């Protein structure tokens, strides 16, 4: 149980420190409201901070996320709790919410850590690095990633052997194994849910071989391979470290697929796959990239032009669904697919396959309020109860939704949705 209890009050609680939550928090704070931003992860920045470049402008994602992140983190009207979970929210009345938040122990005193990484060097334990999507290892005493905010160490207590090496190495003596969870009791005037999305788990589609065939990776793993802070400093296939030269994208992995219970379209996979294909053509000039698709959905501003550009660069687009993937002895992969243009079943050999995994809802949303109060849609995204006139409204007055917590959307749409949520929260607070 929590050792310390803090009480405080804010104008708004923003749940989730990704790009949507961050934008909403900044909008509120810049207009003079006090915000508490609660992030489950050890750093704010959400998924966007881990991406390579973003479509269709090919801006470096870290470069446009980090200034926002640092603006949020140093804003005098925003309080950030990382590694923290919203346990329960109760609405007492208009402009009157109570929330209980638990900040899990980091076992490092954040204010004293300088991010020197000496603990990381000293730690003898190596486990999979979740921020590199398990493609490389990290220590049990670690800084989450190089551009994390806050950029301070944390101890992964589940894997830590309590050997004490980090404590000895730390020059500021900020490692503290006696830390306990802290409870925050907050009174609030409004709530913004910006809990984002989860990626579809490709293990659910056994015939694609993910998890068994090493050269079948997810699009998020490819995103990391292409990012400036990438794990191998080049694009390699994980099976044998070979530089791939025949890459295939399998679109709609876990989207538009009733067999996995997700009939909706994830809205972003076509475009991020096209973007990765363009980046790969740059990173691996000799490589062929093939995208297997049902429909290409390049619907946003500049998207169709971006798709045309990829075709012009020589990306090969094949209309057809992948039936199954099998592995050859050398690690190459055979894709069996229906070629719609020719109306025949074909097989093609590739040396690396990227599964363009879709967007699924974040299950955390169901637990914030007492059962049923916060209405969810059939896919467990937060239900937008006034979709046309007030897209940020939910079934609870004063609780608004921003970004992909309400359904799949790309970054520009998430940011506009966050703008709507913060706008509604502001007028809700002011209106009385």
């Amino acid at each position: 149980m929590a050792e310390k209890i803090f009480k405080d009050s804010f104008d708004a609680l923003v749940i989730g420190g990704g790009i949507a939550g961050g934008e909403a928090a900044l909008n509120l704070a810049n207009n003079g409201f006090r915000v508490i931003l609660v992030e489950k992860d050890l750093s704010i920045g959400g998924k966007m901070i881990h991406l390579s470049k973003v479509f269709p402008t090919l801006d470096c994602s870290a470069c446009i996320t980090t200034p926002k992140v640092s603006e949020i983190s140093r804003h005098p009207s925003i309080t950030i709790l990382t590694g923290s979970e919203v346990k329960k929210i109760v609405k007492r009345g208009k402009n009157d919410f109570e929330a209980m938040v638990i900040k899990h122990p980091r076992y490092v005193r954040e204010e004293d850590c300088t991010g020197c990484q000496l603990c990381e060097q000293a730690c003898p334990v190596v486990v999979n690095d979740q921020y590199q999507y398990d493609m490389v290892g990290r220590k049990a005493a670690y800084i989450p990633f190089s551009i994390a905010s806050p950029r301070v160490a944390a101890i992964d207590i589940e894997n830590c052997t309590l050997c004490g090496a980090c404590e000895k190495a730390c020059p500021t003596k900020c490692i503290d194994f006696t830390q306990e969870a802290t409870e925050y009791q907050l009174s609030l005037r409004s709530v913004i849910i910006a809990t984002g999305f989860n990626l579809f788990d490709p293990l659910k589609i056994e015939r694609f071989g993910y998890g068994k065939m090493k050269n079948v990776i997810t699009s998020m793993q490819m995103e990391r391979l292409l990012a400036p802070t990438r794990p191998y400093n080049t694009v390699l296939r994980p099976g044998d470290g070979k530089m791939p030269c025949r890459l295939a994208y399998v679109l709609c992995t876990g989207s538009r697929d009733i067999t996995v219970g997700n009939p909706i379209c994830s809205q972003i996979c076509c475009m991020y796959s096209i973007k990765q294909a363009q980046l790969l053509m740059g990173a691996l000039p000799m490589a062929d990239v093939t995208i297997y698709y049902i429909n290409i959905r390049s619907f946003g501003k500049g998207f169709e032009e971006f798709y045309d550009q990829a075709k012009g660069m020589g990306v090969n687009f094949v209309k057809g669904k992948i039936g199954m993937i099998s592995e050859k002895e050398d690690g190459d992969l055979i894709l069996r697919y229906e070629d719609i243009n020719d109306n025949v079943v074909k097989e093609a050999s590739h040396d690396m396959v990227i599964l363009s995994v879709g967007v699924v809802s974040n299950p955390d949303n169901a637990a914030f309020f007492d059962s049923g109060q916060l209405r969810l849609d059939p896919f467990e995204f937060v239900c937008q109860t006034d979709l046309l006139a007030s897209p940020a409204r939910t079934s609870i007055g004063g609780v608004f939704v921003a970004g992909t917590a309400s359904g799949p959307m790309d970054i520009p749409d998430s940011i506009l949705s966050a703008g709507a949520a913060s706008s509604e929260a502001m007028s809700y607070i002011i209106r009385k």
Partner: protein
Amino acid sequence: MNRKLGVYICHCGGNISDYVDVEKVKAAVEHDEGVFLARTTMFACSDATQKEMVEDINANQLDGIVVASCSPKLHLTTFRAVAERAGLNKYNYVHANIREQVSWAHSDNKTGATEKAIHLVKSAIARVRLAESLDPITIPSRKAVAVIGAGISGMRAAIELADMGCPVTLIEREHFVGGRVAQWDLLFTTDQTGKELVTRLYDDIAKRSNIRLLTGAEVIENTGNIGDFTLKVKVTPRYINERCDEGNLQRAIDACPVEVPDDFNFNITTRKAIYHNFPSEYPQYPVIDIKNCTRCGECEKVCGSIDFSQQEKTVEVKAGSVLMATGFDPYNPSEGEFGYLQFDNVVTLPQFKRIIDMCEEKLTFRGKDIHNIAYIYCVGSRQVEAGASSAGGSATDRYEEASRDISGENRYCSRYCCTSVIHSAIETKKRFRAVNNYHFTRGIRTYGKQELLYNESLKMGDIYLQSYENDPPSVIRENGKTTVRINDIMTAGKEISVNADLIVLVTGMVPRSDNRIASLFKLPKGRDNFFNEIHMKLRPVETVIDGVTICGACQGPKNITESVNSSLSAATKSFSYVSKGELELEPIIARVDAALCTWCGKCMEACPFDAVKKVVDGGKEIAAINNSVCKGCGMCLPVCPVNAIDLVAYSDQEMETMINALAEDIK
């Protein structure tokens, strides 16, 4: 001057350091005059590095910093804030762009890139040696916003701004509010109709005393700038008294002998010169279309509320910020495009939506029953370069083939049309019996949860066909029957023909053809000709014209939800310009040396922002700069024959020392 400078050179992950040897750059500049410390950093913009910089400045009492990283467009404000947090005047920081201008541009020449980076950093150091501390220009900002366009986006933004306590003037060119949404009866993914939605928002507007609604109102002049815009608005009267008797008005409408095409119904019907678009439309009384009125006086005979003495007037609107929500036009196919205006049973999607709204028990068009409907997708969207598509169009006595040319300027996808037409097709099938829907697509784009509608339509038995790229379907009239023919991808290229009673061209969104408002505000447009935002992700509702925000479909195709999201975002942004009552502006502007100026007027001609005025100063005519309009673009500098103008922070002396640094060691 003795300076103590800090220089930071960024790797930008690998974006810079993959091509520029950043350590070499550091070594080349660390002994330059005034440089106290030079460091390289993985991400200069990261929180940790920013903290380090603040510590460096404080610990070493630095009085100037140079950051060499990406374009200042991204991070100028980030590093200015760093300087401020360290107690350093932010104009003592100078930026060097070694990503866009070096590593990305010269990825083929690493040695050359490093050389160039060294010179750019040296010139930035040279400039910061001369940097002076500056204070921002503070101007008052009027707490009021002018919203232009009372469609869904503008109405929604007005309500939100009003609720934040900001007075709003909502300016609508038409005599009725609601824009395109009022014309759409059925709206996808909810059960609301366009009329219901508009009525609800109109009621919300009417309830708020701080919203002034002007209809029949067109902005004809714009002066001023952020914080203090003055708009001249021409208001056309309705020629009907406000307190009118509705029964008599209907009799007046019946009495009017004039019939003109009805814009509201996309010209598939006619209306009178005294009209309302639909009963209960807002504002709830009709209007006389004075352009088409013959002044025959028939209406006056039956209705006492008619008042031809009403005069057009000009209203002045003052606001601290202007929010643009001017919407879109539906693509208007050219004559003969897939048979439009060539065959009488070819209509556009907006016309089709009006047809299903107007039909009651049976679906009919021009007196004929409709059973088979063919929908041709992407008309006016995803167009190709001229010559890339087959033009078609041939005719004999009894056989006529329409043009199927899909070349044009509109490369973009209009994003709303797939879902909109599928939704309309479903509703048509539900409402009218014996309707068969045939969709001639270019690949369905029902993104997100809209996919469920596509699934529903498939289950209802709609037939989906898909054409090959550059081989669009053809529309043929033979023996009085209209056929749509396609080489269908879904059946491996089989030629499939459908006899259609009605052909619906699924037309996309195009920018408003009437572009006067954009020229009044000098709003820039993107390559798709919609209004352009500053940055799609960082500043999606702001424009390069300070104080003017954009939202809804004037920025690019959007559905209603997306429009409203952007409109609320724009409302927040506009509110932030006016909420504090004052604004801080950049002090980097032109400065006139009154002693040197001889007033020739050349600077005034050169200024793209109308910031230069002639004033009399001590009996002498000289140029004066309007501080809140000048953007420091420097256009006036080179045209001055007596060199009387200098740019703050970019003085001749500063530029010369930069040029010297750039030219150093170059033989």
